[in-house]
C-alpha cells in the first residue's frame, strides 16, 4: 500500500531537550530550512521525566536571553547535602569534599517537562512544525542503504492488527537528514545502532532506572533551593544507585531514586527499593504531613563515553541519550543532550549548504565541552562495579585528585541483561507492605501517571518467543519483569495451577526497562498508537 509522503529538509524524532535544541538551532542558523519534529506523547513534555538539577551552559548558548524569554528555570540551588544512609542512621558528607562535578551551587532546580514545553514554544515561534501524538514507528531507507526518513504509526488498528472504522494510515516523511532524539533506548535508535554497527569497538551500554515522585510538603519541612543526594541504604553494597531530594518552588519536593540496571539479584524490585527508601527517618520526616502528587519512571543512560556509539550514519544522526550523552557522576544529561543537538544542527547546516559529510558531527562533538566533560567522568561508573566502598574511594582519587585525568579508562564488561544471577542462588527480599501514606503500591502509583493506551490496539510490547517467560525466565530468574517494571505491566498469573504470563500493556509508562533488562532480550518495546502513554505534568 502506498502511503502519503511529505518532504522536509530535516525530520527530528522526539521532542525532548536534544530534539528541541536541534530544531531551535537549525532555525536560528537558517530560518528558511524546513524542520518537522515528531513526538509520541499527546503534547510536548508529557513523556519527559527528570530530576532535575539543571546546568544552564547549553541553554546559555542557545538562548543567551532565556531569562527575558521567561524560561521556566527559576529555583536556584541554595544549599547542598550528601548523606550516606545506614538502616536507621545517616552520615552527612561535607560538600566541599565532594568532587567538583557533584557541586551544584550554580545550577537550578527545574521541571524538565516544563522546560521542554517552553523550548517547544520557542521552536514553534521560529517556524518548526511540531506534531505531538505522532510516533515515528518505522525507519525508511534509500536504495543505497542510507536513511531516507521515517513513517508514522498507523492509527486505528485493533488487537489483531485489522483496521477499525477510525483507521488512519501512517504517512512517510522524507528528509535530507533525519535526527533521532528518542531518549534513552529509543526503539528506532536501537535499530540504527544495530544496522549500522554503530557500537562496534565500544563497551556495552549501561542503563539505570530512575523513579520520581513529586510531593507537596508542609511549609516547615520545605527549604526551597535545597539539593540533597543519598547513597547506601536500602541498596546492598553491590548495587549501584542513590536518591535525589530537590526542594523546588510551591512547597514541592522532587524526590527520586536511580538504580543501575546491572543489578544481579533477580528478586530485587527497583520500585520497592524506592518506596522503602522513603521510610528512612532522614527522609520520612520531610514527607510527613505531605501529599504525593505525581509518580513516574524512566530508564536512563549510564555508560558514558566508553559506551557512546558512533552518532552519525548515512542520512541520519543520533542526538542526546538516543546515543547516550548523559554525564553519570554529574547526574545530569539535559545540558549535554541539548548541546549534542545544537552540534547536530550545525553539522546539518554545513552538510546541506556546503555538502560536507555528516561525519563532521563526530569531530565537532569531540572538540566540544560535552566530550571533555564525558571524558573526565568516564571512570566513575565502572569503578562502582567493585562495590560502593571501593567505588567511592576510587572516585575520590579520580575526581578530586586527578580531576578525571588518570591515564587509563575502566571498561564496562557486561550488558545489563547479562548480569542477573539465578533466582535460587540469590536471597529473596522481603519488602514491607505499603502504608498508603509514605509508601504506595504500583497500582495507585501508575494511576498518578495518567497513562492510558486506547483499548483494542496491538500490544506494543512484543515477545520474540511467547513461551520463554514461563518456560525459561520464570524458572531461572523467577520472571524478574514482574519486579523491574515500574508500572505493573508484567504479571505471572495462575490459571488452573498453571502459570500464565500476562502483559497489561495499557499500563506502560514508556520507561523501556523491559527492553533493556530482560535476560534473553525477549521483550521489544515498539511505539503504541500516538498520544498513548503517561501524561506527566511538571515532571
Amino acid at each position, binding site marked *: 500500500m502506498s502511503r*502519503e509522503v*511529505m518532504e522536509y529538509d530535516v525530520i527530528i524524532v522526539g521532542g525532548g531537550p536534544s530534539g528541541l535544541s536541534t530544531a531551535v538551532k537549525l532555525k536560528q542558523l537558517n530560518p528558511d530550512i524546513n524542520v518537522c519534529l515528531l513526538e509520541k506523547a*499527546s*503534547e510536548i*513534555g*508529557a513523556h519527559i521525566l527528570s530530576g532535575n538539577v539543571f546546568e544552564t551552559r547549553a541553554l546559555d548558548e542557545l538562548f543567551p536571553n532565556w531569562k527575558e524569554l521567561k524560561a521556566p528555570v527559576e529555583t536556584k540551588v541554595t544549599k547542598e547535602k550528601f548523606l550516606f544512609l545506614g538502616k536507621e542512621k545517616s552520615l552527612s558528607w561535607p560538600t566541599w569534599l565532594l568532587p567538583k562535578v557533584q557541586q551544584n551551587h550554580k545550577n537550578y532546580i527545574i*521541571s524538565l*517537562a*516544563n522546560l521542554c*514545553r517552553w523550548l517547544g514554544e520557542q521552536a514553534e515561534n521560529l517556524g518548526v*512544525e511540531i*506534531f505531538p501524538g*505522532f510516533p515515528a514507528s518505522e525507519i525508511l531507507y534509500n536504495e543505497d542503504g542510507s536513511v531516507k526518513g521515517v513513517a*508514522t504509526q498507523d*492509527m*486505528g488498528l485493533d488487537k489483531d492488527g485489522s483496521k*477499525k*472504522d*477510525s483507521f*488512519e494510515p501512517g*504517512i512517510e516523511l522524507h528528509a535530507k537528514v533525519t535526527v533521532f532524539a528518542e531518549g534513552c533506548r529509543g526503539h528506532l535508535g536501537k535499530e540504527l545502532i544495530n544496522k549500522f554497527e554503530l557500537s562496534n569497538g565500544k563497551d556495552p551500554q549501561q542503563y539505570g532506572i530512575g523513579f520520581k515522585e513529586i510531593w*507537596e510538603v508542609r511549609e516547615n519541612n520545605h527549604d526551597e533551593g535545597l539539593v540533597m543526594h543519598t547513597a547506601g541504604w536500602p541498596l546492598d553494597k553491590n548495587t549501584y544507585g542513590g536518591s535525589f531530594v530537590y526542594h523546588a518552588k510551591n*512547597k514541592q519536593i522532587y524526590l527520586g531514586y536511580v538504580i543501575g540496571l546491572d543489578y544481579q539479584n533477580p528478586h530485587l524490585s527497583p520500585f520497592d527499593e524506592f518506596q522503602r527508601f522513603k521510610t528512612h527517618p532522614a527522609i520520612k520526616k520531610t514527607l510527613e504531613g505531605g501529599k504525593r*502528587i505525581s509518580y513516574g519512571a524512566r530508564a536512563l543512560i549510564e555508560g558514558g563515553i566508553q559506551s557512546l556509539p558512533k552518532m552519525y550514519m548515512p542520512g541520519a544522526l543520533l542526538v542526546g541519550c538516543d546515543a547516550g550523552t548523559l554525564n553519570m557522576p554529574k547526574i545530569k544529561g539535559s545540558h549535554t543532550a541539548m548541546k549534542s543537538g545544537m552540534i547536530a544542527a550545525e553539522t546539518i547546516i554545513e552538510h546541506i549548504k556546503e555538502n560536507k559529510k555528516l561525519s563532521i558531527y563526530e569531530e565537532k562533538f569531540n572538540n566540544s565541552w560535552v566530550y571533555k566533560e564525558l571524558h573526565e567522568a568516564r571512570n566513575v561508573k565502572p569503578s562502582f562495579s567493585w562495590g560502593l566502598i571501593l567505588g567511592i574511594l576510587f572516585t575520590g582519587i579520580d575526581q578530586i585528585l586527578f580531576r578525571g585525568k588518570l591515564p587509563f579508562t575502566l571498561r564496562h564488561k557486561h550488558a545489563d541483561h547479562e548480569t542477573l544471577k539465578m533466582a535460587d542462588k540469590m536471597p529473596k527480599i522481603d519488602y514491607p507492605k505499603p502504608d498508603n501514606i509514605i509508601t504506595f503500591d504500583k497500582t495507585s502509583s501508575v*494511576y*498518578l501517571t*495518567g*497513562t*492510558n493506551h486506547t483499548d483494542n490496539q496491538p500490544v506494543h510490547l512484543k515477545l520474540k518467543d511467547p513461551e520463554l517467560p514461563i518456560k525459561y525466565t520464570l524458572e531461572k530468574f523467577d520472571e524478574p519483569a514482574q519486579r523491574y517494571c515500574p508500572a505493573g505491566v508484567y504479571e505471572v498469573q495462575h490459571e488452573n495451577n498453571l502459570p500464565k504470563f500476562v502483559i497489561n500493556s495499557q499500563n506502560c509508562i514508556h520507561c523501556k526497562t523491559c527492553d533493556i533488562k530482560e535476560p534473553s532480550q525477549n521483550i521489544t518495546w515498539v511505539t503504541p498508537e*500516538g498520544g498513548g502513554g503517561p*501524561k506527566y*505534568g*511538571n515532571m
Partner: protein
Amino acid sequence: MKILVAVKRVIDYNVQVRVKDDNSGVVTENVKMSTNPPDDNAIEEAVKIKESGKAKEIVAITVGDEKAQETVRKALAVGADRGIHVKVEGVIEPLAVSKILQKIVDKEKPDLVFMGKQAIDDDCNQTGQMLAALLNWPQATFASKIEVKDKTLEVTREVDEGLETIEVNVPAIVTCDLRLNEPRYASLPNIMKAKKKPIEQINASDLGIDTKPRIEQIKVEEPPKRKAGIKVANVEELVQKLKNEAKVI
C-alpha cells in the same frame, strides 16, 4: 444544511485531577488539556453528515481563553470548514455560553447546532438545553444515533430506561452521547491544512453579554476517601449489616 458544532477545552480525561491547596478550584497549570470527549463525537457526526452530502458547511465554535482555540483547530483538522473563537477570560457558566451561542446562531443561521451532552469538567449538562430554550428550537439530548431526513431529524436518545427515538424539526439542537460514533484521528497532512483554515476571533464583551458567574463557588474539596470493604459470612449477615449499619434497606 449548515451545522454549528460547539467544543470545549477541558482537562484531559486521563489526568488525575488535583484540588488546589487553598480549595479555590483544581490545578490546571501544566496539566494536559483536550477537547471534551463527547464534543469529539459531535464533530465526528457533523463530518459524517457532510460526507454523506447532507450538509454543506461545518463551523466549529469554542468559548474560552486564548488556548481554547486549540480545540477549534483540532475540529478543523478532522473536517470542520472554519472556526469561531469567542474569547472570555476566567470562569464562564453554561448560561453565559448559551447566550453567546444564541448570538452566534443569530449571525450564522445554522440549521443544526451540535455539542457534547455535557462537559467532563463541571458535568453541568445544561448548555444545549438552555440554548434550545433561548432560541425556542427543538432539542434532542443524549443522541446515540442521528438520521437526517427531509427537514427533520430522527434521533435515538440514551435515556435511563433504555433508548428513545424521537423526531425533531430542523432547526434543532442535538447534544451527543459517547455512543454516537467513534471519532476519527486527525491525520498529519490534515493538521497541516487545518493551520491554514480561518478562525474568526470575537470578544465576548463585544457581543454585549454579561458573562459574570451567577453562582458563587465557596470551596472545592476532594471526595472523602472510601473506607475499606468488609467480608460477610452469609446473606443474613449482609442483610443485617445493610439494615442496621449502612441503613440502606
